[in-house]
């Protein structure tokens, strides 16, 4: 089988051209669909490998993607929010606004605001807002009608 690599900073995609579906094609698909279980977290010059289950929320702060962990720690992440959205386990994580992804298992509760919005409070005390568009997805996900 011929192999080629095209460097593209805006796209990460695997396209397989083959006469039929073979075990090798299945294997490539499996690798492409693998969800990440850890992320590289940066704290100054120090790099830590964090289990995604330890992250309560990924959020954009000052134009940087930050992972808020169970202990309340905040680490910089190099991946963009849309990349995390594609690679994080979709059963555990959900987008709550255009710049934040929440770990459903780390949500302490929801509260309404006087401005007519809904906020999420995480176990570590971190608070993030739920956008109107994502509120519908969240309701569907939590089977709320």
């Amino acid at each position, binding site marked *: 089988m011929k192999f080629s690599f095209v460097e593209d900073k805006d796209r990460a995609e695997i396209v397989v051209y083959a006469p039929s579906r073979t075990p090798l094609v299945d294997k490539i698909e499996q690798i492409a669909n693998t969800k990440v279980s850890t992320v590289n977290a940066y704290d100054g010059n120090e790099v830590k490998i964090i289990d995604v289950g330890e992250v309560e929320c990924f959020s954009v702060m000052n134009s940087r993607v930050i992972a808020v962990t169970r202990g309340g720690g905040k680490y910089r992440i190099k991946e963009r929010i849309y990349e995390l959205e594609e690679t994080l386990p979709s059963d555990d994580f959900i987008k709550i606004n*255009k710049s934040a992804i929440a770990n459903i298992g780390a949500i302490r*509760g929801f509260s*309404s*605001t006087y*401005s*007519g919005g*809904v906020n999420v409070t995480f176990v570590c005390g971190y608070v993030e807002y739920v956008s109107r568009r994502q509120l519908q997805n*969240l*309701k569907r996900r*939590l089977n709320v009608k």
Partner: protein
Amino acid sequence: MKRFILEFLKRGIFVSVGGPIIVGIVYFFLGLSGEIWYLEVNDVVLAIISSALLAFIAGGISAVHTIDRLPVFIAILIHGVVLYVDYIVIYLLNGWIEDSVLPIVIFTAIFIAAYAVIWLCVFLSQRKTAKKLNESLEVRKD
């Protein structure tokens, strides 16, 4: 911001046609009832242009609800303030409400009362949503 402006223009232009049509209908019924039987050209021109502008702003500002970042009530508040200024200025300009304190106070009170009711409905609805989400979260944890 660019997206909001484009959406504002699109909605505003679409709705602006309705302003002069509504003015025409209102004048038609006022004529039938005998309230008005004579209009000056300048009054008609002013009514047509200003009602188109009123409808343009009223239609355009509804684009504020497409800004996902804004909580519901903030979007409603911005919508309400712009509508209030839009209506009061155009109404006074055309003499559709009397330029004295009492009519303006009554108009303002009706506007505020309507928005207070809307705020209460939105707040109660979101409180109910938050409660349901919390209940669902508890079930999921169990």
